[in-house]
């Protein structure tokens, strides 16, 4: 044992030494230690110097509030005071600043989602009593506590039997230790961080037993190593059996330090004096401790180099010591309560902000509710636990018997916010190195709000988010402004998380492949095997092109295009959205949604349709098939499938509930193969033995239900997005791959989305989302023909607004670069010839689609151009930084304008 490890007591395992390194030096601690207690056991109290002023600093706390003893472990910045010691731990002291390193983190982080009847946060006496009272009713109870062991302050209380609640006997009670409640959200949704698991708990009732945080005292050189919170000193001595000092002075504003003195004395540590701000501390306590109590006084300064060697009480008195234990009063830990939208009020008697009202279904008990005596904590906790269970439907609401405990006292506090001395050395926020002088400067600048002072001084913006320095700062502001009390100044807002949470834990497994679902078609494996290059379209992976050996993307696309226009090609079109629209009013419904009419569409026929938002802007398009009198199949763009279904359902349910029509997404039920090209009829004839594929028997924009040569039922449609003779074969998804292979065996060239885009652009067919951007009407696209004049539909009224009716709106046109080899970049802006190219240059529009065409033997593009239809035949310029491309405006159709090719 080292000199600093007490010979007996503590909750450490003396038979289990643990080796660790700190700042490159090797040390040994014990199982049950934190890094901080192990360092103290090795006589190390001083840690990294302060961030801004480089002042020596020491360990101040024994818990989550630690401002100084921060260490870097595996790239994570953590408080040494909560870091469980383990073999091989290697930590480096840091002055409050982390360092990210690029090492891959192999740790897996997970989320768990649970419901419970009663959630108790905090496993100190009040929380244990609450959990017991709730758990024994059979209510699903969760008790979460941030420490390694339950007990809270009882861990530092000698002689208390911690097995009393017997929580293990309640099958519906779950105890989560090492688990910190970090966020309290609406309707009792509480997020708990437990090492690598983030729990999301929805609780019917919550009992907050989050305890209280001891406040430091503010005086000159209060940051010197060896100044420590009294409760921390007690915890180090009682829980870890380490002595942070041998000769202690206690400075206090309340009763709690007296118990600390008694425990220190019992551990054989000298207590030289207690400095109590109160003129008349309770006589019983004074008599009981039997050391000098300097009443009505406060510490005003310290001495020492890297360690306190004496404390000053005013100019005249100095007491030697090697540790100054301070208790500036207690702050109920109202963070969770405040996050739950609870309001706090200032309580003069204990000089603290305490819980007041809260709209959520919770109760606050114990020290978090400013109830400090043990017996009262237990009683309050038990009553709240029983009540919570009862309100959640369990038990009669009566509290169980509680173990007997010794009486404690909590007489009135007397806060000391400011004392004489050099204010530039009176630290309020150790991490930010901010002092009383800074606060004085802030109020002198005219600042009245605590939020302003916080921002001016940066008090309370460190890792502990003002948990220690916050209220002392408010006290100082109140004094400087002459406010009646800190209550008049008010607090800053408490925000989640209560303690820092790693990005990785918040992200959980929502990373990499799992970040967003990947959707693959039934034929995906074939595409992979045939070397497809994929693009992301929504969540789908779609083949973009299929390069052959030695081919670049451009060559592949030109080859694929040629195959489709001159021979035989095929494309996986399964990702298009498909929605079945069923019911006697299906036709009427579609009439109201689409700009064109569907009610009279013949069964067995297809029609292209367009959807607008109510503002008249193009939303989606696709082909609609009429399957039966009361049944349609609509198709949507790949990216909008879900949005269109939502759209249909919203209008039907909220506007026209009287229409008898229902919707089902069948996107994933079908695999779709577009077989395209002049050779498609011949190639498919053997595959479709029951169908006469001739143009006369199987007309354009009709479909047939049939059976493939291999016995697979199929729906074949004569639709074409390329202008070529084409058949679209739809089969059940599980037949998709085999059917694809069947078609591929005919020698069809597979093509990807890029070829599809080129082919449709040659025909002037738009892609919603590429040639439109939410500001484009059907008329802008030159598609007046699709806008019915005879019926109302969603969006129609918007077309007659002054701006949508303007003749010089941006309209879809074609562009042919004057140099047929020049490829206009998609997104190029267009300007009129002759305008000077010095900014701001008036822009007429932009290129939406641009390709090299195999069929045309040149480049071409589609564009949206202001008044574009009137510019056909004129030249426009596309300035591209260092060069300008000149292009002629054309009709937006480049290939087979008469439509002669679609019938083969």
């Amino acid at each position: 044992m080292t000199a600093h490890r007490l010979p007996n007591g503590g909750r450490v395992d003396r038979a289990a030494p643990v080796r660790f390194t700190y700042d490159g030096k090797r040390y040994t601690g014990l199982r049950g230690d934190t890094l901080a207690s192990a360092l103290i056991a090795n006589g190390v109290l001083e840690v990294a110097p302060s961030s801004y002023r480089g002042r020596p600093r020491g360990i101040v706390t024994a818990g989550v509030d630690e401002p100084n003893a921060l260490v870097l472990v595996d790239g994570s910045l953590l408080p040494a005071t909560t870091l469980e010691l383990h073999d091989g731990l290697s930590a480096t002291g840091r002055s409050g600043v982390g360092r990210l390193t690029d090492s891959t983190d192999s740790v897996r982080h997970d989320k768990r989602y649970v419901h419970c009847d009663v959630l108790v946060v905090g496993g100190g006496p009040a929380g244990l009593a609450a959990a017991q009272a709730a758990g024994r009713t059979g209510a699903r109870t969760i008790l979460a506590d941030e420490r390694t062991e339950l007990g809270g302050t009882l861990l530092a209380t000698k002689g208390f039997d911690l097995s009393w609640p017997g929580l293990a006997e309640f099958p519906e009670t779950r105890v989560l230790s090492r688990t910190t409640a970090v966020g309290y959200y609406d309707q009792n949704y509480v997020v708990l961080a437990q090492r690598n698991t983030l729990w999301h708990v929805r609780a019917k009732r919550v009992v907050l037993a989050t305890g209280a945080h001891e406040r430091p005292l503010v005086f000159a050189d209060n940051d010197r190593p060896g100044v420590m919170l009294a409760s921390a000193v007690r915890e180090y001595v009682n829980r870890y059996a380490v002595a942070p000092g041998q000769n202690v002075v206690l400075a206090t504003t309340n009763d709690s330090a007296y118990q600390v003195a008694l425990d220190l004395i019992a551990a054989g540590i000298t207590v030289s004096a207690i400095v109590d701000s109160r003129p008349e501390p309770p006589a019983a306590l004074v008599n009981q401790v039997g050391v000098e109590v300097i009443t009505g006084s406060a510490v005003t300064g310290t001495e020492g180099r890297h360690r306190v060697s004496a404390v000053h009480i005013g100019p005249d008195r100095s007491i030697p010591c090697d540790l100054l234990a301070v208790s500036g009063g207690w702050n109920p830990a109202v963070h969770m309560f405040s996050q739950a939208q609870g309001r706090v009020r200032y309580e003069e008697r204990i000089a603290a902000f305490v819980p007041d009202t809260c709209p959520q279904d919770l109760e606050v008990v114990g020290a978090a509710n400013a109830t400090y005596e043990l017996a009262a904590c237990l009683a309050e906790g038990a009553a709240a636990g029983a009540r919570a269970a009862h309100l959640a439907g369990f038990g009669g609401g009566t509290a169980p018997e509680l173990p007997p405990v010794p009486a404690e006292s909590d007489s009135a506090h007397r806060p000391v916010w400011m004392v004489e001395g050099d204010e530039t050395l009176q630290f309020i926020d150790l991490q930010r190195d901010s002092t009383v002088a800074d606060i004085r400067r802030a109020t002198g600048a005219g600042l009245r709000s605590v939020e302003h002072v916080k921002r001016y001084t940066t008090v309370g913006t460190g890792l502990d988010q003002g948990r220690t320095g916050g209220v002392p700062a408010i006290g100082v502001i109140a004094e400087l402004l002459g406010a009646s009390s800190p209550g008049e100044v008010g607090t800053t807002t408490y925000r989640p998380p209560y303690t820092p949470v790693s990005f990785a834990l918040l992200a959980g497994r929502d990373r990499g492949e799992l970040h967003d679902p990947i959707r693959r078609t039934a034929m995906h494996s074939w595409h992979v095997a045939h070397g497809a290059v994929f693009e992301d379209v929504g969540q789908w992976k779609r083949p973009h092109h299929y390069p052959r050996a030695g081919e670049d993307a451009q060559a592949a696309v030109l080859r694929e295009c040629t195959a489709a226009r001159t021979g035989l090609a095929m494309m996986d079109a399964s990702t298009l959205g498909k929605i079945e629209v069923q019911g006697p009013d299906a036709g009427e419904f579609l009439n109201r949604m689409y700009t064109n009419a569907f009610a009279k569409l013949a069964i067995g026929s297809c029609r292209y349709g367009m959807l607008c938002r109510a503002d008249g802007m193009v939303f989606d398009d696709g082909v609609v098939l009429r399957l039966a009198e009361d049944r349609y199949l609509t198709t949507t763009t790949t990216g909008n499938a879900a949005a269109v279904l939502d759209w249909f359902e919203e209008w039907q349910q909220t506007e026209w509930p009287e229409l008898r029509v229902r919707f089902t997404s069948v996107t994933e039920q079908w695999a779709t193969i577009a077989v395209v090209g002049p050779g498609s009829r011949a190639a498919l004839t053997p595959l479709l033995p029951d169908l006469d594929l001739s143009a006369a028997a199987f007309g354009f924009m009709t479909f047939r239900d049939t059976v493939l040569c291999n016995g697979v039922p199929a729906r074949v449609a004569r639709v074409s997005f390329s202008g070529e003779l084409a058949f679209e074969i739809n089969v059940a998804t599980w037949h998709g791959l085999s059917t694809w292979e069947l078609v591929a065996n005919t020698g069809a060239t597979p093509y990807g989305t890029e070829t599809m885009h080129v082919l449709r652009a040659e025909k002037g067919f738009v892609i919603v989302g590429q040639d439109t951007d939410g500001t484009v009407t059907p008329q802008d696209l030159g598609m007046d023909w699709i806008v019915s004049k005879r019926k109302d539909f969603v969006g129609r009224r918007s077309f007659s607004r002054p701006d949508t009716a303007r003749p010089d709106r941006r309209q879809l046109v074609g562009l042919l670069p004057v140099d047929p080899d020049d490829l206009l970049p998609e997104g190029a802006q267009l300007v009129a010839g002759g305008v000077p190219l010095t900014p701001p240059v008036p822009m007429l529009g932009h290129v939406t689609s641009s390709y090299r065409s195999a069929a045309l033997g040149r480049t071409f593009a589609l564009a949206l151009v202001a008044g574009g239809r009137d510019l056909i035949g004129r030249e426009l310029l596309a300035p591209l930084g260092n060069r300008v491309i000149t292009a002629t405006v054309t009709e937006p159709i480049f290939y087979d304008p008469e439509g002669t090719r679609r019938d083969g």
Partner: protein
Amino acid sequence: MSAVLPEHPEFLWRNPDPRRSYEVVIVGGGGHGLATAYYLARNHGITNVAVLERGWLAGGNMARNTTIIRSNYLWDESAAIYEHALKQWEALPEELDYDFLFSQRGVLNLAHTPQDVREGVRRVNANQLNGVDAEWLNPDQVKEFCPIVDISPGVRYPVLGATLQPRAGIAKHDHVAWAFARTADEHGIDLIQDCEVTGFLRDGDKILGVQTTRGPIMADRIGLAAAGHTSVLAGLAGLRLPLQSHPLQALVSELLEPVHPCVVMSNHVHVYVSQAHKGELVMGAGVDPYNSYAQRGSVHVIERQMAAALELFPIFARAHVIRTWGGIVDVTPDASPIIGATPLANLFVNCGWGTGGFKATPASGWVYAHTLATGRAHPLNEPFALERFTTGALIDEHGAAAVAH
């Protein structure tokens, strides 16, 4: 030792009591209200002005935003006003004699799909022709500009390129507000805190003054600059505006040694991040979908945002979130602001900046001061009038280039 922030001035502002009447009353002491006050004095010599703030100055969205400043908007109308702002930003630290840490470190907007690429290129071209600095970067250039971005093709949404605006960057929001406030105060403008406007004094369709928690205050002209709370105020005057208030959340990490040299935004995976002067990572998400004035949002939005951040920046895995918060943003149907007259005489609005008004603060103040001083729109805010919703002449910044921050 850590980076130290510049010292604030010894004196910021008086705390005057409200007078009975002013020439101009500005409701809302956020960045826009304070900048408006400043430009009323600077550009129009009008100093008989009060800014009424119900809480503490610049405690609304001004205190909550992620401080991204850029002007690379798509449409001409937007580019004009935001670029005006950016030029003002470049001059303001000196003009206001306040080091508010304006850092032109460059903003990247990442593209993850071919459609993102098309939109990015379109915007870069438009920006260049509008005189806004803009470049298109390929993935390797992205990596060079911001080495910690993961550009490997294996990630769920690989980086296909990015737009870069080199002159864009960040500034320290509180300090910006204080810089405007201090100078406005020096001009004799009354900045009145803890003064909530609770009603309007009117004569028919003419507004004469405001009722406040500190008594009635008369004014010749009244300008609302209440961001997320504009609808509530307008409601007191019986006006309905095309605004919806939503929570927008953001967060910071602990202080970290410098790792992130610029600002990165990704619309597709919904994240934007920079590393502030002191060293904390500052990050924002998309809006929570529901209407709210509660200044907080839902946790899954933050979780989603963290996941997105780690997709782009695996190195952030071990950073910690130390604080999250929400502001209330006023969103218009076209994600562009509304600046100008209302149907009520003497009452003007400047609102709808939604998720992206910090960067516009100086220009917003400039044109709003002009509007309040002259009763007419400045050419820069003419297109942003309320009437556009009737005519349909929207300036649709999310339809076209969805990033509005």
